[in-house]
């Protein structure tokens, strides 16, 4: 009698994802298998999907007897949330990988259609929870684009300041989790410690450490707090000196380098073909940064360098993010000097609610206040796509308005969602141990992947 009876099919039905899963080679349809194996994606550009892959360097004739499909996640400490990977292994070598996502899907794009433009930021800010301000920023910029309103200069500069601080905190968080994944727990504690400095400033400014709803269509929710310059200088000085310490601690550390150098590499052509953006694309040597290439806000008025790598391996991605923190500090220091005085939100009465004091004096102010918070403001018909450079890559917002006060369609082009496709390519042919470092260096935020 078999010691492992066949499980009840009703139980299987509840746990299996069916065709979404990675299945054995015998059961996988030909085109899908080619895609998965040709993880080294169809680079002969002339005949991409038409069957030339078999002749490439990839061995398509591995039989199912030689390989093993293992499941990793969705509850695995190294998968950064609820990422589930199914990996086909030949011994210790990764052959095929398939990310299975959707465990954190909460229908935020659908929710976005039910919320007014005023409320919209509270929704989008929860997508990429490591850089919420960037989500708010891209949504607000898309709404403003449709409204056709001009922002007072201070609002733009406040946004830039917050966006760069956010990039620092997000990358510090990444340094921490990456450290944890490759075994450097000291780095984990350090990264979280420095991020705390920045989050404390955000709390002081916006009232919350995360999910701020601070950047809103029409400007920001409030002005910067008194003495913000001192706080920001302290953050910059601290992070800057400590970055040098980290450099000493890990950049040249032999174990750390052995885990990262040469593992999970990606070429520039592959990165472009897979629509990867952000540090992943830059680490392959393509100097593509929307802040520089298609400037938004006032990024054309500050000096910074676009950090690029050479080999596109895990170490290059580490180095890119590491040095982007330094560039962000550089930008923040310039913003300190350039920050203009004035309004922090537009004075358009249809968009911006009146100040509290005016409500007691003026009937119109009360009506406007009431209208904005119940109905919201109407946005002219049209479609717009706005993209910004979030810490993870191109963060886009495609907004369709039908002239009412709610978005007709709100689509967020989430960089993590798109970048995740390059993970199987990076992991192909590597060791299973390096897969952990590779997932980490893709930096997926599952809130944004699944939305």
């Amino acid at each position, binding site marked *: 009698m078999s010691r492992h009876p066949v499980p009840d099919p009703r139980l299987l039905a509840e746990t299996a994802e069916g*065709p979404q899963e990675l299945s054995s080679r015998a059961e996988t349809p030909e085109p899908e298998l080619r895609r998965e194996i040709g993880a080294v994606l169809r680079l002969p550009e002339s005949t991409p999907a038409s069957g030339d892959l078999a002749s490439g360097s990839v061995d398509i004739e591995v039989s199912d007897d030689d390989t093993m499909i293992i499941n990793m996640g969705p509850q695995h400490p190294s998968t950064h949330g609820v990422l589930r990977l199914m990996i086909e292994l030949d011994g210790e070598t990764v052959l095929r990988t398939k990310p299975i996502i959707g465990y954190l899907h909460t229908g935020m794009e659908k929710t976005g259609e039910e919320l007014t433009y005023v409320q919209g930021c509270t929704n989008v800010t929860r997508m990429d929870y490591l850089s919420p301000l960037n989500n708010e920023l891209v949504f607000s910029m898309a709404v403003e684009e449709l409204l056709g309103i001009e922002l007072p200069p201070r609002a733009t500069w406040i946004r830039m300041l917050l966006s760069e601080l956010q990039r620092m905190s997000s990358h510090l968080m990444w340094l921490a989790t990456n450290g944890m994944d490759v075994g450097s727990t000291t780095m984990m504690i350090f990264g979280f410690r420095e991020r705390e400095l920045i989050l404390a400033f955000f709390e002081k400014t916006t009232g919350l450490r995360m999910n701020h709803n601070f950047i809103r269509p029409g400007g920001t929710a409030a002005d910067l707090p008194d003495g913000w310059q001192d706080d920001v200088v302290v953050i910059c000085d601290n992070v800057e000196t400590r970055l040098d310490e980290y450099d000493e601690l890990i950049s040249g550390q032999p174990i750390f380098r052995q885990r990262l150098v040469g593992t999970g590499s990606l070429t520039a052509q592959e990165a472009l073909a897979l*629509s990867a*953006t952000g540090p992943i694309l830059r680490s392959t040597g393509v100097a593509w940064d929307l802040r520089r290439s298609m400037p938004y806000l006032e990024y054309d008025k500050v000096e910074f360098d676009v950090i690029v790598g050479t080999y596109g391996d895990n170490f290059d991605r580490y180095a890119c993010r590491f040095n982007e923190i330094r560039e962000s500090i550089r930008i923040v220091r310039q913003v300190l000097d350039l920050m203009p005085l004035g309004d922090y939100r537009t004075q358009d009465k249809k968009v911006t609610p009146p100040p509290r004091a005016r409500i007691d004096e003026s009937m119109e102010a009360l009506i406007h206040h009431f209208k904005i918070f119940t109905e919201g403001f109407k946005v002219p018909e049209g479609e717009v*796509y706005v*993209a910004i450079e979030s810490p993870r890559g191109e963060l886009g917002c495609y907004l369709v308005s039908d002239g009412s006060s709610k978005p*007709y*369609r709100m689509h967020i082009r989430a960089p993590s969602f798109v970048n*995740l496709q390059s993970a199987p390519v990076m992991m192909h042919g590597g060791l299973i141990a390096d897969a952990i470092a590779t997932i980490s260096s893709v930096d997926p935020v599952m809130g944004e992947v699944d939305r």
Partner: protein
Amino acid sequence: MSSDDAPGEASVAVGSAPPPSAQPNAQASAHPVIFCSRAEYHDAVAKLRDEGFELLSDLCGVDYLTHRGRELPSGVEPERFEIAVVLTSVTQRRKVRVRVQIPEGDPVVDSLWDLYPGTEAMEREAFDMFGIAFSGHPDLTRILMPEDWEGYPLRKDYSVGRVPVQFKEAPGPR
């Protein structure tokens, strides 16, 4: 509803010539928008790729069920669904948006996967959320919803659902 687009239907380009690369802050709405028919879609994108749009930034579906009267250039027949594709040229520093109308009765369109492998997940998402099928896609399965999910959540005729509230007059779920 005719499911075949006349191949002779010319693409309609809206907006001026692409802006020069050095123009700052002209990013968002300055993208030129190209409308093309379903039959020409794949070739039009292939042509754009040859013109130097190396990166496909975004692909998303839109359901225009309750907003039929949207503004479209003459010659473009509004349909229920639409696919909007944003292409980026890294070398020329510009973006272009391609919009395709997809009829309700036959929501099928060519996959761009053979041109841009990065559309794999995006097309699966559009399929999952709108039920638009992409012919030529290697692995068209649901990506965010469970495999046995019924319906396409982002369609306009798909209800949001409701949490029941414990009041006498309150409507129940759905």
